């Protein structure tokens, strides 16, 4: 198809949007877990972005704006296709990484370092892909694309507290999954429960409020 002559604002918009294409495609890949679907998702999102480019507020984060359109488009399509991923039941009990970290392995290396060294990028990617959609989304937005909690909250349209909670739980879930995997393959020693310990209590509930931290500190002053 011959490239049609474009007017200036279109050209500028296209240049800006295409500058973020790699990041958008990477995000689309994590969301859809399929190359062709990812391409279609990026295309749909960019067409929408173009059509509603006048709603973009200048001097705000255009990358976050594009990511928001991409994410919303994905979730709309998922809802339509009734392809809702069943939420994995979280096995939160029993995962006490504090205990895990306080143990020492026989080689003298900290067990947590053994775990981190034992896990390959491929295995970690698989584990991320196995997360439920909304867990996977926040982890990738935060740890891969570096968005702030506030930006993530805008992109996925939920309160900051929910973002914090999802991040906390998804990271814990990943850690537990990888730990179990590593123990299964003998890559790290299994941990015996501490002697005389009480039955497993549920792990600490996630923090959802940064203000609470500040208030707590004020109280202590």
């Amino acid at each position, binding site marked *: 198809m011959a490239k049609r002559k474009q*007017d200036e604002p279109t050209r500028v918009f296209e240049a*800006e949007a295409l500058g973020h294409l790699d990041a958008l495609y990477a995000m689309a890949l994590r969301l859809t877990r399929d190359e062709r679907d990812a391409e279609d998702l990026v295309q749909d999102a960019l067409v929408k972005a173009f059509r509603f480019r006048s709603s973009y507020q200048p001097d705000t984060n255009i990358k976050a704006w594009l990511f928001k359109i991409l994410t919303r488009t994905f979730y709309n399509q998922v809802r339509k296709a009734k392809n809702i991923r069943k939420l994995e039941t979280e096995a939160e009990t029993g995962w006490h990484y504090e205990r895990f970290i306080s143990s020492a392995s026989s080689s003298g290396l900290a067990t947590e370092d053994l775990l981190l060294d034992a896990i390959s990028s491929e295995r970690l990617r698989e584990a991320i892909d196995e997360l439920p959609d909304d867990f996977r989304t926040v982890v990738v937005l935060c740890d891969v694309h570096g968005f702030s909690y506030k930006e993530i909250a805008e992109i996925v349209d939920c309160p900051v507290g929910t973002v914090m909670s999802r991040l906390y739980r998804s990271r814990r879930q990943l850690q537990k999954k990888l730990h179990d995997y590593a123990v299964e393959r003998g890559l790290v020693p299994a941990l015996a429960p501490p002697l005389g310990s009480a039955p497993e209590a549920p792990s600490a509930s996630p923090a959802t409020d940064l203000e609470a931290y500040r208030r707590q500190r004020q109280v202590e002053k």
Partner: protein
Amino acid sequence: MDCQEVHKFVHAYLDGEFAEEDRVAFAAHLANCKPCSRIARFEERFKEKLRASEPQASAPARLRARIEGVLAQAAQQQRGGARRRWWTWRLVPALAAAGVIGALGVTLGGREKRADPQTLAEQSVRWHRRQLPLDVTDSHGDAIRRFFRDKVPFAVRLPRLANPNAKLVGARLTQLRGHEAVYLTYQVGAQRVSVFVVDPRALSGGQDSRIQWRGVHGYNVGTYVSDGTGYAVTSEMDRRRLVRLISHE
């Protein structure tokens, strides 16, 4: 502050969500508490592993071509007459129902506030995005240097870029934070990279040769000094690739 609190907020701390005062207090606890510092170190390493696990997926060339075609079509439709207009507007209720339109009107404030005066990073991003006409288009560094010889009070030393495919497109005279600067624009594959060559005094890092990074509006800006010349490199390219591009030591 007890360790239980620290465990709860360690993610927020590592994700850079704390204000300076709280961050300092948190770091002080970590410095004095071995178990907590081990946890923080583990979480930090885990976070880094998450980031590093992401493959450097470049969008396939065919996708780029598709997007360009589709945007051209969309532009055509919007410019079209009344006959075509009804087709575009028909999408509006559907998109509104899908919750997209209402959402799009929301401002994404993020962390960046418009501060007066603008920081060097913000100014760099502004210039990078404006894509203003160039004073000189030439892919040869010598020609660029000669062009600016009598126009700026410093030697325009081009940055050493690691990628042989980085093509110098041209340059323009500009200013950054009141200092005269030369704006160079490069094409690296499908992405643009702007390099501002400036007096090192315009940069806040002093004579630091290490690259200082800032994220502004989704763009990455790296500033550093090399051989007495200051550089500010701006691109939408992800930080890892940008680091590789300009690392010359």
